[in-house]
């Protein structure tokens, strides 16, 4: 347990620095954007030059860049991301409202791509170089080449327009007043297509990684030993080869989370899922830069947290990790 705690502490310190760099980066982008929050506010409400002066002064925008960075950091420390002009509400509230949908979409897509991807990877890697292996390799490469948003559109054409099996978009039926299990089933039905579109793209990655890892493990001595013991092929594949090839995939789970979040931006706008990604697109369309940068900050925090969780899980799965730190 102390092992995992030590690891966690070291990662947390590193994360603070990384987050600080991200904050400074978003601040610079905010500075580079034409017009400031006052311009955006006046553009939507109207007001004269005196009003602009007053607001600039009140919001601290007439200060030097360094002072404004300090104010920005101070506000962030209090979890204050500023005010969204488009929604006329605090950015934090808007983001928190959308976050659950994105987490649901990402979580389900990750489960799909990781589960199915590693299973197919084991299937392909059981006999490296065999027919199934070559077929799955080419298939996964082709899948990897498909843009997620286009796969989403094709799924809509086939399963929502032609076959009418699933709804065309949204997260749940509007004004259906469903509750409890009915509502959960309704949301699940809405999520089938977007989760498939997002999950299938990344499935190829896990498949290929699992397969490559297994090809590597097959060459090791302990596999030879297991063979010499007379173990069944099934037990060697599952108990020895696949098991050892699975660990790097867990790390990939964390590294992929940032990509997955980026991918959900496009998928959410294809399927009109009211999540963080669609919010980002709305922010772009409305030129609401503070909102967009708030989303980036929250995504960065999310990616850091996911990676921390993956690191902890890894420390539990692999007894070698962090052993040297615990001893020191």
């Amino acid at each position, binding site marked *: 347990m102390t092992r995992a705690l030590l690891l966690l502490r070291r990662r947390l310190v590193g994360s603070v620095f*990384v987050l600080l760099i991200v904050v400074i980066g978003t601040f610079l982008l905010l500075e580079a954007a034409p017009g400031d929050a006052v311009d955006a506010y006046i553009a939507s409400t109207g007001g004269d030059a005196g009003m602009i002066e007053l607001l600039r002064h009140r919001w601290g925008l007439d200060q030097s860049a360094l002072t404004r960075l300090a104010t920005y950091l101070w506000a962030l420390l209090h979890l204050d991301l500023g005010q969204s002009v488009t929604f006329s509400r605090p950015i934090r509230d808007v983001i928190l409202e959308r976050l659950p949908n994105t987490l649901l979409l990402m979580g389900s897509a990750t489960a799909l791509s990781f589960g199915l991807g590693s299973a197919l990877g084991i299937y392909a890697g059981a006999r490296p170089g065999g027919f199934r292996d070559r077929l799955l390799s080419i298939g996964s490469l082709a899948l990897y080449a498909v*843009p997620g948003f286009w796969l989403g559109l094709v799924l809509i054409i086939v399963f929502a327009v032609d076959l009418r099996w699933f709804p065309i978009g949204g997260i749940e039926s509007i004004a259906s007043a469903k509750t409890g299990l009915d509502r959960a089933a309704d949301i699940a039905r809405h999520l089938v297509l977007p989760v498939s579109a997002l999950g299938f793209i990344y499935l190829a990655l896990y498949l290929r990684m699992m397969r490559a890892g297994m090809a590597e493990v097959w060459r090791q001595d302990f596999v030879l030993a297991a063979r010499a013991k007379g173990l069944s092929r099934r037990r060697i594949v599952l108990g020895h080869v696949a098991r050892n090839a699975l660990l790097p995939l867990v790390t990939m789970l964390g590294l992929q989370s940032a990509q997955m979040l980026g991918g959900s*931006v496009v998928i959410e706008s294809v399927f009109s899922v009211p999540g963080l990604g669609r919010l980002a697109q709305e922010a772009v369309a409305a030129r609401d*830069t503070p909102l967009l940068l708030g989303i980036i900050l929250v995504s960065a925090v999310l*990616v850091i947290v996911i990676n921390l969780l993956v690191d902890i899980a890894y420390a539990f799965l692999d007894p070698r990790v962090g052993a040297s730190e615990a001893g020191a």
Partner: protein
Amino acid sequence: MSPLRRFLRTPEAIAGAIILVALFAMALTAPLFFPGDPQAIAGPALLPPFQDWSLPLGTDRLGRDVLAALLHGARTSLAVGLAAAAAALAVGAIVGTLAGFAGGLVDEVLMRITDAFQTVPSFLLALAFVSVVGPSLGVVVAAIALGAWTGPARVARAEVLSIRERDFVAGARVIGMHPLEIALREVLPNALPPLLALSSVIVAAAILTEAALSFLGLGDPNRVTWGGMIAEGRAVLRTAPFLSVIPGVALVLTVLGVYLAGEGVVETAAVRRSLS
């Protein structure tokens, strides 16, 4: 065996090479076959493919020639994909080499910045960059490179860490070369091979990112893009799905061609290394 013959040994590499050659031919001959503006109206609106042989792939909602747009779109996809990948590889190689060669505080700072760029979803970063600076071809290239240089930087750094202990680096120090000169002229070129193995993945990712950006309406508005065509077709998805399907198939084939050819190159290089 010549490198080319060795490269063309696997069926995958041949398929990749054929796709890429066809694609470059499409991109290069687009102004020859369709010298006019691909965004000009060429016929009746929403003409299905294979009906009129002067407009083989049909027309879109405004009556624009789909084939002309497809060929001109190939130019944008390839140009942006190659330029963004080249920029990402160059920045990554330089940052990785400096970090690995200098070590200490420089290494620490550069790698934390790399971490930060890897923490932010690269597509969101590209989206924010384009929306702040404004969409144009150069900005889209920069936005894509901004999220793609971290992988090459890590690979370059790892490679440099082993190269800097070699004798020829010590030799360069002895003859009094400036450390920066050693890093960029002696160490960097030797760290390139693993980066080039990475390049096909980066080109493919850049093409996909460009398509996604222009799908969301953040591409260069003055150019035809496959992503933009798919977005256009989305409005008539029920009645004319071919408008979204055709440019999508072109995208998939392009990215697949890049992957396949890239794997062929890596295998050729691996064979050559094991032979020498």
